[in-house]
């Protein structure tokens, strides 16, 4: 069967099981948009290519399937650079197809030419410039294989226009036809390493399971729970791992890190053993590295061998898929007597319970305007359908969402961790809702973030994707304001935004959404209930929140975690 490169490309995506893709056409990718008309793949037309990328990420994060986006050459391709970088930092499987000028024009500064494989080399797991139509099915298969196996990540396939218009004889490659002689992701652990890890775990008196996003990527939440309950070890879940272990579980200490809660941070600092599972000792978790968990031995499990010993030397380093390693640990433990060590850990748990009692997450509530932002998150949480997916932007509101939501299930939390990309929430929420139409999806967004990508609500309205957006409108680039207040002597430079410019309700309505506003605490609940009742279009709620509220606890940047700053009310108590 003779196909054009464009037809072969769409057919290859179908062969990969792609059901939806996000994109926006243009000159160099035009040939590929033609066969979309007859394809089973749903194409969602975005208003800005950054939206397409973040939608594909949101879709991937809640489904576990790779997100797919398609853009044209030049500016279309550069507009999706931020999502690629974001997905690279957070190990999200993403396949981006970009148009390119014809092969003969490459290198001549042709109209809308951009060396996008060069630009994205450092922020993709791999990328390809396709030079022959006959290569398309194989390259697409390679791209999906690389994006989804090992440590997942984004890939880009750049397709020159003449490659999509020329013809090829259709084939679909077998796994052995893939031309990847240098690609062999680690999976199964070494039995000796597993035994060594168990030995350390059996000796520990102050252990912590330090759970990162890799546990979710490996679909390892159940195995994690089994190991946690088997060992009785406390569990912290990083910003990328919220939901990997239920917040309501008595062994869950919550989130560690710069804005983690006191107990999670301090338990890691005082631990004699950290079992890091799919976590990478990010600086936002460790604080000053040489003062991080000084007395702890480390078992480090990661599918990416380059993460082992990168930041912190591990005593036992295991390269492998988290779920497989967790299961191997459980299997090996079956040979040992059950309930081991519960007495041994009792003093440790006593200390942990004491920290929890003294330093719970806290804010001073108010029954007058302005609304406390934390209260909005609590009300959203308490009024949400079970299984609701929460998506956050980047800033104070993101930290409050992570702190005050109660995560019970995996894949219910979508946020931009490693890159901290403002503007992530609205498009990622749309992608999440497309991937899980059966779930309610709430974006908790900042006023600054919202203004970066709000136009995608037009996409959502047009495509009838009923996401809900809560803007914690503090009229500021709040997180930056907080740093200027705390570390720059209250010198506020370029952080004020205004509460009512733009008018978020009118803007929402202009984009085909329901627009609501809550200005005082008693309006919060009713506004949320109203929003929850809408299911045929997107809803935006403008919550007028307290601009002076700060995120606590906080470990100042570059400081040791022991320098954690708790809420002033706790400090008063401590004195």
């Amino acid at each position, binding site marked *: 069967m003779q196909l054009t490169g464009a037809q072969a490309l769409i057919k290859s995506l179908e062969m990969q099981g792609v059901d939806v893709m996000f994109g926006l056409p243009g000159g160099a990718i035009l040939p590929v948009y033609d066969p979309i008309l007859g394809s089973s793949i749903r194409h969602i037309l975005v208003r800005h290519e950054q939206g397409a990328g973040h939608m594909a990420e949101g879709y991937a994060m809640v489904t576990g399937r790779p997100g797919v986006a398609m853009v044209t050459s030049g500016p279309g391709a550069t507009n999706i650079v931020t999502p690629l970088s974001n997905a690279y930092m957070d190990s999200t499987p993403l396949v981006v197809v970009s148009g390119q000028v014809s092969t003969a024009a490459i290198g001549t500064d042709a109209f809308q030419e951009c060396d996008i*494989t*060069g630009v994205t*080399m*450092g922020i993709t*797991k*791999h990328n390809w*410039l396709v030079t022959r139509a006959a290569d398309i099915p194989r390259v697409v298969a390679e791209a999906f*294989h*690389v994006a989804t*196996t090992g440590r997942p990540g984004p890939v880009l396939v750049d397709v020159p226009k003449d490659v999509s218009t020329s013809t090829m004889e259709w084939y679909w490659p077998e*796994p*052995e036809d*893939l*031309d*990847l*002689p*240098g*690609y*062999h*992701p*680690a*999976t*199964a*652990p*070494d039995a000796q390493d597993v035994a060594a890890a168990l030995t350390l775990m059996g000796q520990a008196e102050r252990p912590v399971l330090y759970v990162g996003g890799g546990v979710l990527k490996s679909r390892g939440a159940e195995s994690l729970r089994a190991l946690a309950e088997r060992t009785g070890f406390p569990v912290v879940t990083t910003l990328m791992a919220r939901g990997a272990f239920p917040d309501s579980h008595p062994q869950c200490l919550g989130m560690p890190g710069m804005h983690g809660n006191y107990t999670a941070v301090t338990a890691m600092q005082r631990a004699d053993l950290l079992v890091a599972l799919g976590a990478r000792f990010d600086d936002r978790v460790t604080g000053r590295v040489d003062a991080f968990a000084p007395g702890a031995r480390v078992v480090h499990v990661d599918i*990416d*061998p*380059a993460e*082992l*010993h*990168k930041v912190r*030397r591990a005593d036992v*380093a295991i*390269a492998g898929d988290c779920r497989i390693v967790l299961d191997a640990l459980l299997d090996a433990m079956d040979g040992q007597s059950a309930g081991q060590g519960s007495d041994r850990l009792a003093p440790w748990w006593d200390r942990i319970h004491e920290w929890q009692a003294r330093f719970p997450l806290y804010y001073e509530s108010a029954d007058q305007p302005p609304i406390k932002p934390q209260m909005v998150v609590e009300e959203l949480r308490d009024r949400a359908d079970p299984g609701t997916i929460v998506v956050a932007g980047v800033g104070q509101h993101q930290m409050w969402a992570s702190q005050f939501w109660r995560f019970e299930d995996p894949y219910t939390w979508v946020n931009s961790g490693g890159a901290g990309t403002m503007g992530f929430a609205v498009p990622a929420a749309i992608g999440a809702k497309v991937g899980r139409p059966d779930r309610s999806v709430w974006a908790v967004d900042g006023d600054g973030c919202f203004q970066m990508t709000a136009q995608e609500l037009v996409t959502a309205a047009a495509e009838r994707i009923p996401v809900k957006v809560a803007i914690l409108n503090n009229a500021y680039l709040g997180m930056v304001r907080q740093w200027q207040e705390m570390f720059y002597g209250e010198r506020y430079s370029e952080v004020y935004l205004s509460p009512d410019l733009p008018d978020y309700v009118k803007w929402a309505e202009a984009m085909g959404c329901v627009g609501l506003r809550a200005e005082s605490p008693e309006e919060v609940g009713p506004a949320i209930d109203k929003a929850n009742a809408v299911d045929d279009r997107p809803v935006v709620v403008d919550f007028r929140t307290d601009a002076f509220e700060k995120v606590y606890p906080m470990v100042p940047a570059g400081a040791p975690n022991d320098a954690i700053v708790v809420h002033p009310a706790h400090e008063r108590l401590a004195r």
Partner: protein
Amino acid sequence: MTVAFERANAHEPSERGGERHHILTVLVENKAGVLARVAGLFSRRGFNIFSLAVAPTDDERFSRITIVVDVASAPLEQIVQQLDKLVNVVAITELAPADAVQRELLLATVEAEPDARSQVIQLVGVFGGEVLDVGPDRLTVMLAGPPDTLDSFERLLDTYAAVEIQRTGLVALPRLDPGPPGARRRHEPARLGRIGDPRSG
């Protein structure tokens, strides 16, 4: 997949004997842009390179890049693991300088007025080099040898006003009697061209 490293501390600057130089021979796919991927990795992760030489191999699908890395800029193990993540990198062999046969080529054009000419020719002879080209008042000479021999030769040539010196960067192969075990490590998948086979370790 993982390489066993015996070093206790990842941030110790070198493998043994305090050497900052370490040799990696990297087998890569012979495809467009692969050198840029390798060079880009080194620059964005702040790994320093002393020298780099690229050449085809007897198998046209692959090229070999010989990199002399500065293990003071990053732990060798981190450099190797990051390199190994590049999809086009097929195999990495590490060579401690003491366990490798190393050669580099130097070409130099030197001022050599008739009265100095015989001294230069003599010097080249002592080192076992060759005179490649002769002009009215200049000579172009070459020397192949281990890098430190080239260093001494270069210093001596400088006393005769070297006009231009070019060096290729070194290439290396393991010594046939590699000394104690663990000195050389081959970092290579068990099979080539296959996907999806769960490999342990």
